[in-house]
């Protein structure tokens, strides 16, 4: 099949106005804010060596923080600020999405702008500065008429570097709730939709090149006093900004926002919910690829209206309990505690997505391993792989304590690659997920947990405080409750992990709906 006739290109294209518009909006706002802060700082600092050193040092340190971490750090910071502001000033603002992304990216843009502006201004020949003074310029006139024009090429080079960095890094603002071209990349990585990944990368690169060239045009125009070039460059940037405002203005503010975390199952279920709402005549949009900790806060704050979470995750991560309770008791307690936070637990979907220790069926049979207890006796010579959070979670401590597990080696992996790794013998055991379709695909076996050390992870539907009494919403979601068993979910997940045209989350969601309607 011709790669270009793949219907996923059309699917990717359909999201382009939304993703690209948001991406440009967040990048250009961050860049503008960064310039607004950095340029005056550079001017103030140019004659003050101590301040200059401090500023450049600070900007360099910011630069060493990985982009994703910087973005993630701004979210809790703003959340705390928002709470303070609401309490003391009565002003509410959203700590979700746009604001933290803009602030983090603006901070990120500071180093090249500061460094180049300071270097550019410092690099001017002293005799020219004396001449400026000698012909009778005030310090301000010297700055505007001589120093800035002479430093312009260096300053613009810094601005262009910052623009390219910001546009690239903005793809990482997806997990903190800012829609961007990163939505393609995160969704594509999770659902193994390489068309999406490629599309996201190419669009981000093209956008970065375009903005870079527009800035180069402005620079050349300013340097050669060519008004036409400057005007074309400025008009290009203005056109980009205007183009990004159109979709946001036309978007309905009333629509229901369905959230999803960053893995396949979440994308399918968010699609399913959005489709059900639309079928019931309720406008729905998806905010996918949200970080696991961001998404719950976003629900409480009303930035999203509904999403699927798991009882054990909520219990340990959001409510900070470290004890492990039986399934029914945990669900009951969860319901009560969530109500105190004004979050509604509408009900369970009917399957569990728990952590489980998984290994190849043949290997388990050969070694005579059926349960974690059997595994414990041979673990000393084995290696285990888990996702990025597993080894710091309470269930890992609980499993180790209950069975006395001690592996030779412990590795962290991207969840999608874990299954292939255990199937190929790269690692011996993985901490997988019970609902994962790859378990069947690779002929793996889930080891029994006779001591019930792994807490239950029922998939549950959560509603935001402002939608708690929304009868239409409740009615539209009712058919999903208790309707999806583990086998069905595994099959759905397996379908979505395929790298072909019918494995998009939306297509699998449609298949899933058909499946659960006719049991």
């Amino acid at each position, binding site marked *: 099949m011709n790669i270009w006739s793949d219907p996923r290109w059309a699917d990717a294209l359909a999201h382009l106005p939304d993703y690209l518009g948001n991406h440009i909006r967040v990048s250009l706002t961050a860049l503008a804010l960064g310039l607004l802060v950095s340029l005056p700082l550079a001017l103030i600092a140019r004659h003050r060596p101590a301040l200059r050193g401090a500023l450049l040092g600070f900007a360099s340190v910011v630069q060493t923080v990985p982009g994703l971490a910087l973005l993630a750090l701004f979210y809790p910071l703003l959340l705390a600020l928002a709470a303070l502001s609401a309490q003391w000033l009565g002003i509410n603002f959203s700590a979700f999405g746009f604001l933290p992304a803009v602030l983090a990216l603006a901070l990120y843009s500071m180093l090249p702008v500061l460094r180049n502006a300071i270097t550019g201004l410092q690099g001017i020949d002293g*005799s*020219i500065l*004396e*001449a*400026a*003074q*000698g*012909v*009778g*310029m*005030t310090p301000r*006139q010297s700055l505007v*008429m*001589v120093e800035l*024009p*002479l430093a312009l090429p260096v300053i613009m080079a810094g601005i262009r570097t910052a623009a390219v960095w910001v546009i690239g890094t903005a793809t990482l603002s997806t997990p903190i709730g800012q829609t961007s071209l990163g939505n393609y990349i995160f969704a594509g990585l999770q659902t193994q939709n390489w068309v999406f990944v490629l599309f996201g990368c190419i669009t981000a690169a093209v956008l970065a090149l375009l903005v870079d060239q527009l800035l180069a045009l402005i620079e050349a125009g300013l*340097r050669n006093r060519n008004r036409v070039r400057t005007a074309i460059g400025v008009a290009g940037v203005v056109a980009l900004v205007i183009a990004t405002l159109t979709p946001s203005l036309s978007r309905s503010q009333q629509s229901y926002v369905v959230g999803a975390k960053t893995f396949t199952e979440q994308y399918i279920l968010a699609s399913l919910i959005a489709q059900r709402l639309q079928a019931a005549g309720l406008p729905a949009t998806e905010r996918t690829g949200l970080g696991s900790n961001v998404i719950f806060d976003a629900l409480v704050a009303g930035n999203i209206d509904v999403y699927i979470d798991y009882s054990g995750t909520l219990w340990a991560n959001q409510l900070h309990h470290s004890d492990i309770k039986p399934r029914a008791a945990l669900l009951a307690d969860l319901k009560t505690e969530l109500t105190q936070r004004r979050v509604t637990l509408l009900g369970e979907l009917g399957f569990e997505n728990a952590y489980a220790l998984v290994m190849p069926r043949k290997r388990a049979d050969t070694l005579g391993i059926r349960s974690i207890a059997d595994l414990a006796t041979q673990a000393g010579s084995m290696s285990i792989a888990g996702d990025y959070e597993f080894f710091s979670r309470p269930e890992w401590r609980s499993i180790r304590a209950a069975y006395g597990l001690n592996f030779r080696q412990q590795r962290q992996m991207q969840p999608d690659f874990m299954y292939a790794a255990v199937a190929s013998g790269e690692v011996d055991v993985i901490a997988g997920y019970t609902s994962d379709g790859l378990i069947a695909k690779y002929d793996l076996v889930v080891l029994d947990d006779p001591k019930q050390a792994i807490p239950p992870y029922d998939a549950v539907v959560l509603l935001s405080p402002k939608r708690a009494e929304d009868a239409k919403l409740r009615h539209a979601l009712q058919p999903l409750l208790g309707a999806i068993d583990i086998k069905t979910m595994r099959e759905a997940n397996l379908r979505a992990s395929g790298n072909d045209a019918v494995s998009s989350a939306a297509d699998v969601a449609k298949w899933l709906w058909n499946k659960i309607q006719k049991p």
Partner: protein
Amino acid sequence: MSDAPPLIAFEHVCKNFDSVRAVDDVSLTVAAGEFLAIVGSSGSGKTTLLRLANRLIVPDHGTVRIGGEDVATTDPIALRRRIGYVFQSGGLFPHMTVADNIGITPRLLRWPTADIAARVDELMGLVRLDDQAHRGRLPHELSGGQRQRVGVARALAAKPRIVLMDEPFGALDPLTRTALGEDYRALHDRLGLTTVMITHDMTEAVLLADRIAVMRGGRILAHGTPAELMQSGDAYVGELLQTPRRQAERLQALLPRDAAT
């Protein structure tokens, strides 16, 4: 020497940079219409002295007067716009055209645009940059001599009475240097300027200036007309004056007048 009040007066002026005494208790006057050359080797304090006159540098002690007025109580920006300054190797703004460089001080003084353009044309004629194509050129497109002509035109743009020149012709080849020096001296006389020029070249000073001050170690060793300087008993002054005299004698011997005809 005239009895008119001095246009520029240094009164017991001192200036230190860190522990170095750049200008050491200098008293010196320049009469209106006079052309004074300050001669000294590098590090003698001559550039510092020049810059004290338009308050690019502020003295530690003593008073500098322009037209009888203490510069310490004058607005330095207005003062500098009233005094022309020619920098060593031009000091032209590399991003501005010749016309913009020449018209900069009138522009700072907010002259009407048409007046500035007319003044630039006039000055380009005065400094013999006749080709109108030079107007739109950038400094790096000019020869060294042309750049320095632009520097002179810029200094004269706002019609100053005083022109300060910091080794203006030092970096030029001998032919250009002589031509420019003579052209400037003619302008000085025609426009009734008062000029203070710094140079390390005694020959140039003798040829161009009315009066010469010799500086060394921040002090004025001697000052007066070339003839008066000859009377100075100072060994260093005598040594400096030997150079033009010897050059003149050698030239006389090598290029006898009758041989040319």
